[in-house]
């Protein structure tokens, strides 16, 4: 049992046959992280707070001529600010910074792909958490994630990602990254409140700051996320280090999970059923000459 399972209500369990124990037994509000990228100054306090709270060692990085700490999030680096220099149509430059981490999708691709019972759990408050002790290291979640977030640890053969500080949230605290943010660009609360705040901020940006396309990123293609962004230009989320406008769970996972797998199980059962009743109806094919037939059941004589 995860520590968080004592404090948070489980909504979905990966690779789990049957019902979800205790699901919706307790009222729990959906939580969300709201990130206002327009007020991010790229200080990386959140990165440090994340590493510190999770007791991760600081890892080696590669320098790629930006302020970005490393090219991608890593198994022990859940939280990364992506720095992008964008040249606008009028030739002016815009420095875009986006805090990247697990989006805690309402419809998580990692959970759909995962074959191990209980390795990935989704809480009713929206947090999608990895339970490493049940993880078998197959890495199906890695390619099931629309954001390429889960990362494999070669040493432990387990996959890791941002937990949205489920341990802190379960005790009524905000995630570590939120606590550390000096500009107030990171917020944490109920999904409803965060959505309202984000909408308000986007309106402010549109009406008073000249960002006509400012908007809230909460993609409906995966039924929304529990990390939402306010972007200067909601029409081009890709500019912010490849944030997809319409993230999708790869369609092949839908066929695979909901068509091919049941079909294969059906094949096993039908196949065994078929050969069993073949034997009952037709019987064995014996080496010839077989002992003489004395009587044969027909439609007339039944016994």
């Amino acid at each position, binding site marked *: 049992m995860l520590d968080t399972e004592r404090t948070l209500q489980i909504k979905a369990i990966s*690779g*789990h*046959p049957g019902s979800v124990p205790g699901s919706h037994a307790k009222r729990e509000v959906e939580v969300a992280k709201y990130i206002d990228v327009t007020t991010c100054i790229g200080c990386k306090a959140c990165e440090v707070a994340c590493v510190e709270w999770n007791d991760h060692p600081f890892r080696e990085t590669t320098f790629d001529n930006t302020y970005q700490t490393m090219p991608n999030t890593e198994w022990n680096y859940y939280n990364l600010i992506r720095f992008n220099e964008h040249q606008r149509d009028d030739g002016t430059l815009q420095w875009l910074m986006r805090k990247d981490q697990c989006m805690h999708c309402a419809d998580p691709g990692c959970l759909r792909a995962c*074959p*191990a*019972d209980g*390795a990935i759990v989704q809480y009713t408050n929206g947090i999608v958490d990895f339970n490493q002790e*049940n*993880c*078998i*290291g*197959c*890495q*199906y979640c*890695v*390619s099931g994630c629309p954001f*390429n977030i889960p990362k*494999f640890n070669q040493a432990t*053969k387990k996959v890791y990602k941002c937990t949205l500080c489920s341990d802190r949230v379960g005790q009524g605290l905000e995630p570590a990254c939120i606590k550390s943010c000096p500009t107030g660009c990171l917020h944490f609360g109920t999904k409803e409140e965060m959505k309202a705040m984000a909408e308000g901020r986007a309106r402010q940006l549109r009406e008073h700051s000249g960002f006509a396309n400012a908007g809230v990123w909460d993609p409906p293609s995966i039924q929304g996320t529990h990390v939402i962004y306010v972007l200067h230009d909601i029409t081009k989320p890709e500019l912010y280090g490849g944030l997809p406008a319409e993230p999708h769970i*790869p369609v*092949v*996972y839908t*066929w*695979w999970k909901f068509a*091919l*797998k049941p*079909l*294969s*199980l059906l*094949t*096993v059962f039908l*196949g*065994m059923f*078929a*050969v069993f009743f*073949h*034997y009952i109806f*037709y*019987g*064995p*094919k*014996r*080496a*010839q*000459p*077989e*002992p*003489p037939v004395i009587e044969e059941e027909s439609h007339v004589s039944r016994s």
Partner: protein
Amino acid sequence: MSAEVERLNERMHRATSRMGRTVVHAGELLRHSVYTRVVHWAVAIFFILALLSGFAIFTPWLYAWLAPLFGSGPRTRLLHPWFGLIFCAAFLLMLFNWLQPMNWNESDRRWLRRMREYATNEEKMEPEDVGKFNAGQKLWFRAIVVAAIVFLITGFIMWWPEIFGRVLMWISYFLHDVAALVMLGGFIIHIYEGTAQQPGTFRAMTRGTVTDRWAWTHHPAWYREVTGRDPRADYERAAQRQEERQRMLAAWEREQDARERQTESRPPGPA
């Protein structure tokens, strides 16, 4: 290529025949040599191990049942690729070993046309041109060749997702399971045919021999090939002899019955 394959087969046959032997008694024929049996069981065992470990990961409904067989979930995932790899390696030996008898020929096309009669036992004996393996067995063999190639390629990709990337992963998961679906169907039929459906077949893979009767019933052309005799003529002779034996047995029974009746009808003598 084929000469080298032949040499390899011969070397393996010689090596294994020193370790084990096949005893053929009167009325029996040698069906599978020691080497063939060893290779077949290697393929079979590792297929089943790969199947069980794969099924554990394949469906949540079997995960809790099958994963403990291999220690745990992580260990199942660790072992599965190795089971698959050994299965493929063993099957390669089997492929070399059976290249010649698995060759497709004219009689196989005729066999496929009368598959319904075969499946419903309408014909008690196989047509005279059915050789060491029938067309169904040859199809199964070909299905394994294709599936093994798909398993191998997609399996390698799934083994190292960090090298091959997401798109290849999506395709691989799907194809790996399609191959498994085909293999499952064939596997169930294969086991059934080799055990309950055709009595006398399983021993071909254990002790290596089959009876004459089994051979002329199920693989007449092969019977002709190994004995140099006419399978139909031998069958007719056996059938005739059986009929005569039955007649004589029946006569003996009648005689016996008459004698018993005689003793019963006699009044009991003084004690």
